[in-house]
């Protein structure tokens, strides 16, 4: 059960998680920067204020499920899980290393608390719908399934198959959250394969759609709460985010989608994060 937590505490946690991400990526020497940094606030909100879960009992049958469809941003999930107590923070530095539970893309068999395996885009929402549908058959009302997906992933047909399916079966125990950061590998989404008007598209597919600032904790939590009150439709929360949020030289730049910082770049990034952009002094000057 989520304990009472203040926005201030969430912001501090998210900042720590951003630092974890930078450290993990440097240690790994590969991985994705922009998405994880951009989604640090959403993941902090999910694990510390939204999800019904128990880090000491990861397979608690009554837990909410979180499906990560855009599996490549898993570093932010790993970092958030570690800070929430699922495994030691030190293990984060094993990301992408041979023998690690923290594979480059999430694998359920190696780390069951990840709920499923993803990486190839487009399958997560279907899997979330499948869980929701199974619960519907069983008359389960006490749990919710969340699905994080990316905007670039909306190119995949599988996503729209799931959209049709979710609306058909009125999967009201499902909340999808889209990381709308406007970038993908080859460039800005609206240049690679234009998606707008995304809100209108999803509404036409029969989903209840809200849009939020993905860096505003109150908005994130309010939107997740509102979703639980929508009775006859699945919900999509479009979270507008800044790719690379928190690291000045990464923000808004699609080149940081799929590469890690170098050790020198990481030093600059960590300094910025620790001093909140130079606004405070840190012992790590």
């Amino acid at each position, binding site marked *: 059960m989520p304990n009472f937590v203040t926005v201030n505490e969430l912001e501090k946690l998210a900042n720590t998680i951003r630092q974890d991400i930078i450290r993990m990526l440097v240690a790994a020497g590969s991985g994705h920067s922009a998405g994880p940094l951009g989604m640090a606030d959403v993941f902090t909100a999910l694990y510390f204020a939204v999800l019904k879960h128990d880090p000491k009992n990861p397979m608690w049958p009554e837990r909410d499920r979180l499906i990560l469809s855009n599996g490549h941003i898993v570093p932010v999930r790993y970092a958030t899980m570690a800070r929430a107590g699922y495994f030691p923070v030190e293990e984060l530095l094993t990301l992408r290393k041979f023998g690690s539970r923290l594979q480059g893309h999430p694998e359920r068999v190696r780390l069951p608390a990840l709920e499923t395996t993803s990486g190839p885009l487009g399958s997560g929402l279907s899997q979330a719908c*499948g869980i929701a549908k199974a619960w519907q058959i069983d008359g389960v009302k006490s749990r919710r399934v969340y699905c994080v997906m990316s905007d670039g992933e909306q190119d995949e047909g599988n996503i729209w198959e799931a959209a049709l399916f979710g609306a058909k079966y009125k999967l009201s125990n499902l909340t999808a959250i889209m990381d709308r950061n406007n970038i993908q590998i080859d460039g800005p989404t609206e240049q690679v394969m234009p998606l707008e008007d995304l809100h209108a598209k999803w509404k036409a597919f029969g989903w209840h759609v809200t849009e939020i600032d993905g860096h505003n904790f109150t908005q994130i939590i309010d939107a997740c709460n509102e979703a639980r009150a929508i009775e006859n439709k699945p919900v999509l929360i479009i979270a507008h985010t800044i790719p690379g949020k928190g690291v000045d030289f990464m923000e808004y730049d699609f080149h940081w989608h799929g590469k890690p910082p170098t050790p020198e770049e990481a030093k600059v990034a960590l300094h910025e994060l620790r001093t909140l952009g130079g606004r405070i002094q840190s012992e790590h000057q």
Partner: protein
Amino acid sequence: MTDPHLNPTLYNKDVEQEAIRAGFGRGLVTAGRADARVVALCADLTESTHMDGFAKEFPDRYVEIGVAEQNLVTAAAGMALAGKIPFVSSYAAFSPGRNWEQIRTTICLNETNVKIVGSHAGVSVGPDGATHQMLEDIALMRVLPKMRVIVPCDSIEAEKGTAAIAASEGAAYIRLARDKTAVVTTRETPFSLDKALVLREGRDLTIIACGPMVYQALMAAEELSSAGIEAEVVNCAVIKPLDGATILASVRKTGVVITVEEAQAVGGLGGTIAELLGDHEPLPLVRVGMQDRFGESGKPAELLEHFGLTGRHIAARAKALLKTKIAMSRNG
């Protein structure tokens, strides 16, 4: 040899014919009655894949997906994560044809308990033509780690195979056919998920077949017998995991091997046996199947005839192979 309790009228012209997919339909209902966790998902082909019986008896456990094969298997993976035992069906050309990657990632790597039913496999699909005549599915599925591959020889075996995979944890692929084909086995015929079965004993050559080609192999054996050649016929219903012991025992006895499948002659049953022989017992091997080409529109019987997939053709290939073997041993 264990008595296979074959259909006693199997060699008659009027042997009973039933579509393999019909046996699956019955097996699915049985599985649904035995375990409330069994659910069924279909991509707009409920009647022709024989999921309609299940849908009628268990409407709350039946999920219509529409023509969306990627969602078919990934939604099923999700249902499996929530504790269900999902069967998904479509034509093999579309599933696993279209959604192979999602099967690989969300079912095999993810280790979810999903049973994939690929119907209308082989050229006997008939008039629909090459696009719908799936020939590559055995190869596609057997090469995936953590995927069982079952090719029942008739409707009775399909019924048993369905019940068996429902009761056995782990992903599985079961291959069905459209056309009515001979009922070779009976209720008493043994079936198990890790055994091949010798249906007919012989010491001159081993014919290993799967699916409706098992009947053709038995017809070939009958024809060869009247020419003084005794063929041993093995029903390899479970291509993965392969019962290497039963097959090696047979081929070590006969020394000559033919495989028969209504599929590409590479990569499927023939490929599996070639690998087994190469590893343990290199022997002369002929792989009867489609020779690196697609099917086409036609009546099932004329297509099988055209592509050399009948008892008569198998018998001819057997005679040719034995002539070569005799020639080789004379020269050796």
